[in-house]
């Protein structure tokens, strides 16, 4: 296994105060009876304060596994095989359960994919928000009045009327539920918000409102955001940095404009070309072939069976992430000759 490391990750070792999250060669594997599935296989990146990173990939590319690992919630048969995750200098993976519990929500919070399923159907919204605060906040227990006030304030910031506090989840629409989930996620002013496809079940108008609210929350807290998803349109509008994941690895990483205008990795290029837009009617037929199954990855570069630029070396050697532009890196043998 070649150790994949970005230039950023190397430079990072002397953590600057601006870096909120440093992921260093993270590996999360699933043990199955027949094989070891490498869902996240040597991912490294750094996130500055206020940065909005989008992790893009098809289903099975490992993006949700990565998010779960960052939250310290990897469950069997999954396990963190190696690597480090530093959140403001503290190693998340080395924490014990109670430390991790105190870190969740107060430092790192998750906005789950299906808010529908993440809320308790028989408990009022107010209680669900308060439960999170009591459970994860350090120090003295706040009074009931303080808590109620906090709930009202949170609902206001996510754009919900105060009457929602007394409601049950089934009385809310999908967009409102997602807003409640965001209120819970930001209740202890985390430094990092991970949003795992927060709008995948919502329609376009609501989708846009939710993303705008998330953006406002992030700016208000000057937190960093990791947005996980596969809707490139949404990502183009929201993120400032994009990481493209394929078969458990970051294949390209860089500023959003650079990726959209000057994608280097063949997979990223194909992905961007296959996006539907109002500019043209159906022309491209998507990316040929199928997304790989992680249990049975091809030798060499995982993308080689679908790649139009495939060379001999792609079938044998795994490419490493290389610098291909300012802040932009890609892992492809096409750039082997370039400056490392």
């Amino acid at each position: 296994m070649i150790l994949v490391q970005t230039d950023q990750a190397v430079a990072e070792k002397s953590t600057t105060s601006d870096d909120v999250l440093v992921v260093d060669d993270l590996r999360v594997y699933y043990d199955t009876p027949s094989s070891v599935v490498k869902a996240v296989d040597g991912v490294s990146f750094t996130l500055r304060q206020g940065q909005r990173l989008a992790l893009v990939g098809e289903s099975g590319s490992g993006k949700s596994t990565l998010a779960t690992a960052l939250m310290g919630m990897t469950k069997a048969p999954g396990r963190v095989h190696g690597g480090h995750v530093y959140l403001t200098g503290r190693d998340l993976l080395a924490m014990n359960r109670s430390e991790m519990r105190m870190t969740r929500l107060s430092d790192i919070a998750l906005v789950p994919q299906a808010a529908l399923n993440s809320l308790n159907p028989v408990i009022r919204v107010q209680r669900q928000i308060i439960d999170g605060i009591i459970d994860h906040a350090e120090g003295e227990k706040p009074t009931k009045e303080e808590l109620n006030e906090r709930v009202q304030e949170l609902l206001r910031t996510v754009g919900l009327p105060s009457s929602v506090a007394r409601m049950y989840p089934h009385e809310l629409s999908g967009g409102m539920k997602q807003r409640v989930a965001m209120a819970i996620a930001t209740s202890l002013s985390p430094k990092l918000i991970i949003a795992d496809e927060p709008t995948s079940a919502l329609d376009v108008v609501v989708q846009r409102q939710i993303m705008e609210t998330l953006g406002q929350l992030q700016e208000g807290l000057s937190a960093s955001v990791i947005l996980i998803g596969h809707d490139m349109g949404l990502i183009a509008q929201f993120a400032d940095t994009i990481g493209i994941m394929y078969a458990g690895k970051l294949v390209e990483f860089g500023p959003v404009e650079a990726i959209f205008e000057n994608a280097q990795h063949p997979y990223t290029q194909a992905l961007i070309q296959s996006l539907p837009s109002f500019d043209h009617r159906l022309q491209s037929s998507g990316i040929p072939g199928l997304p790989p199954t992680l249990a049975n990855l091809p030798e060499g570069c995982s993308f080689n069976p679908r790649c139009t630029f495939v060379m001999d070396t792609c079938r044998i050697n795994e490419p490493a992430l290389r610098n291909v532009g300012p802040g932009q890196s890609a892992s492809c043998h096409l750039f082997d000759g370039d400056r490392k």
Partner: protein
Amino acid sequence: MAPLLELRNVSKIFGGGIFNRRNVTVAVDDISLTISEDNPSITSIAGESGSGKSTMARLLLGIIEPTKGSVLYKGKDVSTMTRREMKQYRREVQPIFQDPFESYNPFYKVDHVLHRPAKNFDIARTPSARNEAIEEALLMVGLQPDETLGRYPHQLSGGQRQRVMVARALLLKPRIILADEPVSMVDASLRATILESIQKLKDELGISVVYITHDLTTAYQISDNLMIMYEGSVVEAGTMQEIIQQPNHPYTQLLIDSVPQPNPKTPWGSQTNSRVINQGLTELKGCKFADRCPAIMDMCNLEVPALFQIRKHVVAGCFLYRDSKVMDNTDIASSFAEKDTILNAAN
């Protein structure tokens, strides 16, 4: 133009029993739509959740009965069909559903969803002829039979599963396919292949497709005609190209404006105004969109706008266009373009 499947002044009202008169949801509000026989087309029905688009699909499929009006297939009312006619209708109007994961029974191989309908609808006399038909249908959607058959649903990707669903619909030699959000659960890189197979249905087999979605970009890729729904009513209808290039109804404008363009330099439009809380429909007198509309006028709260014929192939239900004449035919499809015009517009 011989009508194949027709909705005639159809309304569907949910709720509102004896004890609950107030809580009534008008999911579909007096809509007439014809899908004609001799002019295969792809018609998109678009709108946000709660607009009634899925209720439309269920009405067209005959899964639910309309509260008012009637659904006709080949001129016969679906509710009074004989068993034999019903079977033909069920075979010739085929659905493709949103979730390619839930359409399968995980305990059966994917062959099951192909063999079962083939058997029930007497697609072929002998088992070998049936297998042949199944293989043909799979090839049609770009799947290799030997790589697909004999596998369990979990062994296929979401895109493959959805294509097997398209193949299943195809197998029954339908006249109409109703696709309810067929690509929303499929990975971006595979969406185009599904859309392509749907387009092939129309181009090569002459099957009309009703494509129900909230995603205007995918609808735009394949559709000839578009119908935008808002709370059970049609707010704009016409040819796809014309509406996308020049949306007329404020709601259509909002929808198109909200689509995130995959280009960081094309920002989202500025306005978003929607009710955060939808309290169900209260007694509304005027236009349903009035409380969200940026161009609201006094008359909007007093009267329901009719569909105004803005251009030959565009109608919109908005008082901004009250100077145009009211659409003379209640059938929405009369605003759609004939086949030749569509081709010309595309070229």
